[in-house]
């Protein structure tokens, strides 16, 4: 019998290598700042952050699986719980909660009370359209795609835009079955 999947990422977070939180926050801030300078359009920056997150996510999933001992989730509900409780704790040191399930169990919200990316951040008037933490939605999308779940991740609430919490909506579009990858006549 395989060991049960952890219900919280505390133990893993304690054992993995960490970097100073302020260094991390400031580095991320510098990246966003540079993107704003380079791309000029806020929309483009959102897109670029999402793409960067996606590229992180497709690699991050292997580290997550290797270190967390999570082997399989029976349904999307469990997947969302594991992301919020284990994933966020393991990589960001915070936990999130999962709420607002729709009737089919394919769409939910991940709510972050505490978000280490946004310490010291204020959005100036020129950047009101910016989703500062858009990298997170890309990470989730990329990581889930690698475990065969096509998802759409959007921001619902953002403290930097005046809301009271960070809320990410994760919508499961489809699960891709595993198929034999070769053609017969190859």
């Amino acid at each position, binding site marked *: 019998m395989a060991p049960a999947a952890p219900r919280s990422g505390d133990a893993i977070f304690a054992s993995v290598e960490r970097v100073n939180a302020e260094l991390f926050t400031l580095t991320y801030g510098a990246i966003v700042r540079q993107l704003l300078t380079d791309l000029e359009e806020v929309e483009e920056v959102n897109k670029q952050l999402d793409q960067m997150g996606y590229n992180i996510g497709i690699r991050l999933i*292997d580290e997550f699986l*290797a270190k967390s001992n999570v082997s399989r989730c029976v349904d999307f509900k469990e997947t969302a719980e594991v992301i919020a409780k284990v994933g966020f704790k393991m990589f960001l040191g915070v936990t999130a909660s999962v709420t607002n399930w729709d009737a089919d169990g394919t769409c939910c919200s991940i709510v972050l009370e505490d978000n280490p990316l946004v310490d010291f951040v204020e959005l100036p008037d020129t950047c009101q359209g910016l989703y500062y933490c858009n990298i997170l939605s890309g990470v989730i999308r990329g990581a889930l795609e690698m*475990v065969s779940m096509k998802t759409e991740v959007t921001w619902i609430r953002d403290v930097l835009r005046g809301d009271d919490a960070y809320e990410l909506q994760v919508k499961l579009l489809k699960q891709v079955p595993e198929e034999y990858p070769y053609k017969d006549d190859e």
Partner: protein
Amino acid sequence: MQFFGGSEISPSPPVPTATGNNAHMMYVFNRNGVCLLYREWNRPLHTLNPQQDHKLMFGLLFSLKSLTAKMDPTSADKGNLGVPQLPGQGCSFHSFRTNTYKLSFMETPSGIKIILVTHPRTGDLREPLKYIYNLYVEYVAKNPLYTPGTSIRCELFNTALDQYVRSIA
């Protein structure tokens, strides 16, 4: 389980030596059937060209996995044989043994398949395969020069792998 079992029984291979080095070869595949890595330590016989060999190995595992899921007596909801399974569905095997070799297999939910072929007398390699997966994460997934989905060319990974495999098998 015995494959290609003919009438003549080939003599048993030599007993594992104390020095280790009883691993024959290793494959790493991704979900799309791309052979990310092939390492060979002790393989006197090659009958196919590398591409065919990789494809055959991947096909063997793919078919065996759907067969094992089909024969599973414990689960009620099963599709027909050959119908694609969603990830997380079905069961999975972790090794088989013939009289001449043992094949150990691990598949992660992200579709990475690690296959280690060793001497038939090697013990349970599930934990070592997990360790190899961790090596993959440290040396390959975290390597900024590595493009996901391409074959692995990382000396450090190969060295760490050779060293580790020598210690287990």
